[in-house]
C-alpha cells in the first residue's frame, strides 16, 4: 500500500497540490476546504491566540494522523510572520498527542528538499509531475476567473458553482498534460452554456488579504459565492499561478510581479512587511485604478502583517474614494453575521453606483 501524505487544504488548488506529489508514490490526503471537524480539532490543540489559518491547518494534520496518514508536507517560510513557525509547532502538537505523523518542510532547504530526499523519485517522472501540477494550477486559475464572471449574472442561482464542480472533477481525473489542456479547452464552452441575464450590470468587488482565508471556502464563509449571489463580480487577488511565479522569481514582467507591486504601493507603503501585506495595499490601489466598486479585505483575526496595514488601507480608501470592508475571521465568526455585513456592503455599493456610476476601463 502506498503511504499517505497530508497536504494543507487550499481551496480548489488542493487538487493541483495533490497532483504534484503523485510521482513520490504516495497517496495524497487533502480536502478542498477545511471542515467543521478539522477546525474543531485544530482549535482544541492550538495556542489560544494563534491565527485561524494555523488552527485550521493543524486540525487538518491531526485528522490526517487519526486516519492513519504517516507523512505531511508544509511550506517552510522564511518570512517575518507566524507562518515561519507553523511546521515546528504543528509537529510538537502532534507529538504531544501521541500522533505519528511527520511533517516535511518544503522550500528554502537546500537544492533537494527533505521530502524529495526521503521519497527519492526518478527525475523524469518528477519533472513530468511538476509540469502537470503547474498546468493544473493554471487551469484552476482560469476556472476561477470564469466562475467569478458568470456567477454574478447567472439566471439560476447555483448554476456557475455546479459547472465549476463538474469542471474540477474532470480536471482531477486528467492525468497528463495533453489531457489537462483538452480539459481546459472545454471550460469556456461549458460556462458559455450557463443561461445568463445580460441586462444585469454586476458590481465589481476585489477580494484581497491573507492567502489561506481568501481560498478556503469554509474559513471565509463562502465569501465568493455570497457576493456572486448578490450580483457582484468578484476578483480574488490571490492566484496561485502568480504566487508560484513570484516565489521562483520568474515572470518579472507580469502584472503581479513583486517588483511591480512594490512600485505601485510605494506612495503608501515602503516595505514588504511580510505575508501578503504589500500585495494587499498594491492591489487595493489597483482596484481603485481599474474602477472597482469596492474591496473586501479578508484576514484572520490578529493577522500580524494584514492588521498592521489596515490604517494604510483606511487612508487609501478615503483618498481614492474606494469603499473597503474589513473582514476578520476567527473560529467564532458567525455565518449569519458575515452574510449581513456583505449584504449591507453590497447594497451600499449599489446605491453609490446609481448615484455616480464609476467609469469602467
Amino acid at each position: 500500500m502506498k503511504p499517505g501524505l497530508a497536504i494543507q487544504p487550499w481551496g480548489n488548488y488542493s487538487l493541483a497540490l495533490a497532483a504534484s506529489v503523485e510521482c513520490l508514490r504516495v497517496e495524497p490526503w487533502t480536502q478542498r476546504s477545511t471542515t467543521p471537524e478539522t477546525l474543531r480539532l485544530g482549535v482544541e490543540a492550538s495556542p489560544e491566540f494563534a491565527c485561524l489559518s494555523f488552527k485550521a491547518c493543524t486540525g487538518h494534520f491531526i485528522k490526517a494522523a487519526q486516519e492513519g496518514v504517516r507523512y505531511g508536507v508544509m511550506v517552510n517560510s522564511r518570512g517575518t510572520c507566524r507562518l515561519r513557525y507553523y511546521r515546528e509547532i504543528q509537529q510538537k502538537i502532534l507529538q504531544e498527542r501521541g500522533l505519528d505523523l511527520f511533517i516535511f518542510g518544503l522550500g528554502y532547504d537546500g537544492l533537494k528538499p527533505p521530502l524529495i530526499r526521503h521519497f527519492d523519485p526518478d527525475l523524469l517522472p518528477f519533472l513530468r509531475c511538476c509540469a502537470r501540477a503547474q498546468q493544473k494550477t493554471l487551469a484552476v486559475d482560469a476556472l476561477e476567473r470564469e466562475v467569478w464572471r458568470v456567477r454574478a449574472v447567472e439566471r439560476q442561482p447555483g448554476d456557475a458553482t455546479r459547472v465549476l464542480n463538474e469542471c474540477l472533477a474532470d480536471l482531477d481525473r486528467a492525468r497528463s498534460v495533453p489531457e489537462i489542456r483538452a480539459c481546459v479547452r472545454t471550460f469556456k464552452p461549458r460556462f458559455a452554456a450557463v443561461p445568463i441575464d445580460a441586462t444585469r450590470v454586476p458590481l465589481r468587488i476585489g477580494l484581497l488579504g491573507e492567502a489561506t482565508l481568501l481560498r478556503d471556502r469554509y474559513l471565509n464563509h463562502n465569501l465568493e459565492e455570497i457576493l456572486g449571489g448578490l450580483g457582484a463580480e468578484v476578483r480574488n487577488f490571490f492566484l496561485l499561478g502568480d504566487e508560484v511565479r513570484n516565489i521562483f522569481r520568474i515572470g518579472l514582467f507580469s502584472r503581479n510581479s513583486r517588483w511591480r507591486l512594490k512600485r505601485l504601493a510605494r506612495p503608501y507603503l515602503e516595505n514588504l512587511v511580510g505575508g501578503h501585506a504589500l500585495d494587499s495595499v498594491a492591489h487595493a490601489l489597483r482596484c481603485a485604478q481599474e474602477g472597482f466598486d469596492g474591496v473586501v479585505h479578508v484576514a484572520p483575526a490578529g493577522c500580524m502583517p494584514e492588521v498592521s496595514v489596515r490604517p494604510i488601507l483606511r487612508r487609501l480608501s478615503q483618498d481614492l474614494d474606494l469603499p473597503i470592508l474589513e473582514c476578520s475571521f476567527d473560529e467564532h465568526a458567525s455565518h449569519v453575521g458575515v452574510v449581513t455585513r456583505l449584504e449591507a456592503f453590497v447594497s451600499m455599493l449599489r446605491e453609490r453606483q446609481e448615484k455616480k456610476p464609476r467609469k469602467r476601463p
Partner: protein
Amino acid sequence: MRTFIASLFHRNRPGRLRPIGLPRALHPHLQPGLWEAFFAALGVPVVLSEPTTRATLERAELISETEHCLPVKLLDAHLEELGGRVDRVFVPRILSLHRGFISCPKLAALPDAVRAQFRGRFEVVTADVDENRRPLEQTLAELGRTLGFAPAESTAAARQALAAAASPAAPIADSDRRRYLLIGHPYNLADAYLADPIVRKLEELGVAVERLPAGPPRGAPATLRWDTSAHMLEALCALDPARCAGVIQLTSFNCGCDSMAGPYYRETLKAAGIPFMALTLDAHSALAGLDTRLEAFVESIAGRA
C-alpha cells in the same frame, strides 16, 4: 566615499533644529536611551510624550485599529498627544535589531501606518533599522544627514549615541532568596503603567522579583527568529531552578509573537521544573483580577516548597 561626496554638496538645511517628538511607547523601549542620546548629540530638542496613564489607554482604545496589540495602540495614543506639541515625530522602521534576527512584522509597517493615520497633523521622521543590511551607526549617520546635518556632524552624533546607549545595565543585586522572574517584550516591561503594579503586588506579597532587562539575544539564531522572543527564550533556558521560584510572562492581547513563542517558553520551563504563568494585558484588564491571579500563583508555589 559617499559621505565625502555628500559633504561637498552639503548645505546646512534651515529648520533642522526644530524639536522632534519621541513617544514613550514601543520603539524607544527597544533601544533604551539611544534615540534621546542621538538627537541630543545633534542638538535637536527632544519632546517626550507623557507617561502612560489610564486616560492614554482609553484614548488608545478609541483612536487605534481595534485588532492591534496593546503596545501599538498605546503608541497611537502617545503620538496623538505629541501631535499637539510638536510638528514632527520620530518613528523608525525596525526590521531587525540584531544580526541574524528579525523584528515583529508589525514594526515594519509602522511609519507608513502612522503617516496614514495622522496625515496633516505632523511630519513623520523615519529611519530603516536593519542590522542584517547595515550596522546601526550607518543608519544613524544617514538619519542625521536626511535631517539636514553635515555628514561629519551626523557621524559623530551616531558614535556618541551608540557609546551612550551601550553603557551596561546595572547588575542585579545578588541575594540568597529565590526570585521570581518577570518576562515580556521590553516595551511592556518598561512601561510603568503596565508592569509596575505587578512588581508592586509581588513585592507586597513578600517575594523578590526581577524584570528581564532588554538586550540582544546572545546565541546564534535558532528556533525563534523574532529578537525579543529569542531573548526571552534564551533567558529561560539559562534559568537555574534552585534560584528561580517561578516565571511570570507579561503579554499583551493579540500579540502575534507571544502566541507562537508561548509553547516554547512553556516547554522549556516544564523541562526545568519551574512554574510558569502568562498574564495577558489589554485595555480592559482590571487590577483586581491581576492581583488575584498573582496571589494564587505565589501561594501555590509556596505550598509546593
